[in-house]
């Protein structure tokens, strides 16, 4: 036990010095007999925007969901901003309040107004006074371009608006990292742009972002780095230029030829 603890501390201190936000070392996960993640190792630095690409079923979503413990990895270690993800509930709570997440299906709370969706966690988790939380929420809604929808219910908004509320909800916790799990996959084509615009603005503001998406244009324009996954493995990683123009791996080439 103690040796593991020591190793954790050592790793943690070493990483904190290097300003690494997300560190994965040999992360593996199985669903029953099926191996969803096969010893994934990657480091995401502060202010970096990483886009994860790959065919469906390649484990992209599983990986990103492991990072805030919506799924539990079975092997390897994940360190977020110097805190290792273990079964310790306090660590999980701490990490979750530092990491914002945006889902494919928005997952807004349908019984609360947009404003309440955004202020709920700041008030009850960050213990912010209500008025302050509402001020922040309104400025965030303005930032994502829907200040006039604050009093409506999610069911009364379009998909694109809902997803932008979801982004505002995640930002209201003032996270240091934002995770996007296929944020535009459930949207009608004409609404994809409005969500991507918000994400681009966010990336420019210096947020550390990890984005699972099928939007190649977004990856090319915004990403600092592209990671390609297949069958639970990291196949290739590199800058967008390298990735889209001059991929090294055959599997990457095949994938690109299918989608471009």
């Amino acid at each position: 036990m103690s040796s593991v603890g020591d190793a954790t501390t050592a790793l943690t201190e070493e990483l904190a010095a290097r300003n690494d936000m997300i560190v994965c070392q040999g992360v593996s996960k199985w669903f029953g007999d099926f191996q969803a993640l096969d010893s994934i190792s990657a480091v995401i630095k502060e202010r970096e925007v990483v886009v994860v690409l790959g065919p469906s079923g390649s484990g992209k979503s599983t990986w990103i969901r492991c990072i805030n413990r919506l799924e539990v990895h079975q092997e390897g270690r994940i360190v977020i901003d110097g805190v290792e993800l273990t079964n310790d509930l306090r660590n999980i709570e701490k990490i979750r309040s530092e990491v914002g997440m945006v889902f494919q299906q928005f997952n807004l709370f349908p019984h609360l107004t947009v404003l309440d969706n955004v202020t709920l966690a700041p008030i009850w988790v960050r213990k912010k006074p209500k008025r302050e939380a509402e001020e922040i929420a309104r400025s965030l809604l303005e930032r994502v371009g829907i200040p006039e929808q604050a009093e409506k219910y999610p069911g009364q908004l379009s998909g694109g608006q809902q997803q932008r509320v979801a982004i505002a909800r995640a930002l209201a916790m003032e996270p240091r990292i934002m995770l996007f799990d296929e944020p535009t996959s459930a949207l009608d084509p004409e609404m994809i742009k409005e969500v991507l615009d918000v994400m681009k603005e966010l990336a420019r503001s210096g947020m550390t972002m990890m984005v699972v998406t099928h939007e190649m244009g977004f990856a090319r324009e915004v990403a600092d780095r592209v990671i390609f996954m297949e069958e639970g493995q990291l196949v290739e990683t590199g800058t967008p230029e390298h990735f889209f123009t001059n991929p090294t791996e055959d599997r990457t080439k095949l994938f690109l030829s299918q989608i471009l």
Partner: protein
Amino acid sequence: MAEMRPVDIAAASPASQTAEEAVSLPPEQPSTPPREWIRQNLFSTPFNSALTVVFGLLVLLTARGLLNFTFSEEREWDAVRTNLRLLFTHAYPEEQYVRIWVCVGTIAVLAGLSVGLAATTARGVSVKRLSSGLMALGAVVALGVVLREPSALSNADGSVRRNDSGVIRESFAEAMVDRWGWWLAAALLATAGAALWFRFGDERRRSTFVPSVELFMGVTAIVVLSAWVYPWGHYAFTDGEFIAEPGRTVAMSTKLPWTVMWLLLAVALAAGRRLRQAGAGSNFTLALNLCWLACPFVLYWVVLRDPDLDWDRVLSVDIPLGVLFAAGGAAVLWLLTDQRIGELGRIIAALLLGLAAFNWVAAFWGWYPMLQKVRLSFLLVALAALLAHNFAGDRSKRLRLLTVWAVVMAVFHYMATLMNSPSSVETPTEAFVGGFGVTLVVAAFTLLLSFPLGVMLALARTSKLPIFRVMSTSFIEVIRGVPLITVLIFFTIILNLFLPDGMEISVLASAVLGYTLFSAAYLAENVRGGLQSIRRGQFEASDAVGLTALQRTIFIVLPQSLRVSIPPLVGQAIATFKETSLLAVIGLFDVLRMANNVIPAQTEFLGVKREGLLFVCGVYWIFAYSMSKRSQRLEKQLGVGER
């Protein structure tokens, strides 16, 4: 402006919805003329025509049977009329009867304020429906007059005249003439309906609405007014004396209070509306809902029970104890809401809970004596301490928590003191409420107590902690496997044997306990159904924003799952309400026992049972039906925010 208020869901959205509807109404369907409607719906094929005729006859025969039963000369409705007080409040003493009216009045005021404050979501009844309804009612009355068999002839002393073949009746023609009053009523209804119908054009008839509240107030106003002018008859049974004087108006002790009640309702309604227009609605609604929650307790223990306070004891024991717990608890809460305390705070809270639990354990072995309310106070301190960390934060937030705590303690100690004082109401039976009153008391308490218990059981059954799951599942399965009547008898007879020395529980309290546990088991299963309908994404989203499990349950899971389970929950509430008739079996004088045993035993009405039973059916039906109607409205309102 935008707090988390479920009421606002109902308030905010439908208004905009109706506005939209006003803009684009669906194209008007030309109404089918009646003859065409009948042909299309009742006689479309020969087979359907046969069905219509056969079942129509069946309905008419049933109606005739019911009419003949109700209006038969052999019916002794005096048994019900003179015993109305007995049926509703049993033997509550005459000189204290004003307490009953205070209760009814309180409920009237609360109801009026609630309705007035609530945004009007429904448009009410359209003039078309109202006028056609009036005409139809007139037709039904006329049909009833024709259907009922001719009246029996009576002797000079009022008894029914008979010959060998049975009762002697007047001829059909004579009966039709004799019933001119009914004809008049039918004609009045039909004329009123027709007048309304033709006053409005085809277009306006459909688009003009009479609000339901106004309609209700109007109809009740007519009823109340009629008590002053129409000779309904003066019937009473007070101090063992029967009064039956058919030619007079209703007794002053009936019509005066009911008029006051109607006025209270009307004033409260107007006040509620005024408050809403002034924009004070939201704060007031919360206070009002708290009043609703408190009203069964206050009305029962303070108003109806009229506790006889021992002031020496109040000053020397009760008030100091209350102040002690308010201050001590406040100190603990202040400490625990300090942000620096961290994990230690939760440990302290858990230890307090252990102490509170130990006080109860000690009671069973009699290790140290302790007032029941002290034990409960310790428990409340521990529960508040467990929740305290949610209110950590700036000074004003912590002070607000302390204020709430002080209010809770004040209310709790006040109630506990009153409950410990003997009642000064003298009644022949142990429970001082009886008749329909005890039905309402038991139903109200059962619903109030079983609802939170049921929710907790459902949460425990879906909990990750095995100990909660096992406890909840076995409780639910045991209770559901035992008939209600068995549970009730068990609790009234055996419960006292299980209690520690010096603790006793009345029949009424143990009955409420039995009903509560039984109903909670069923409610738990209904709520569990709702819990399972919550999609996984909701859990993930609340985890992802960092809510704790408790916060997730309170803010995200319960509001959504309770909304889904409204229909089964209301079904269970209605079932509980009706099952209170089993109170008769365990020795309490509820309304059924009044009709079935007490009234038939009176010397004036020996063996008169049928009238009372029919009346009891009617009373139960009115309450159950309004609950079911109310729930339909609630469903509509709550369904709005979601889509």
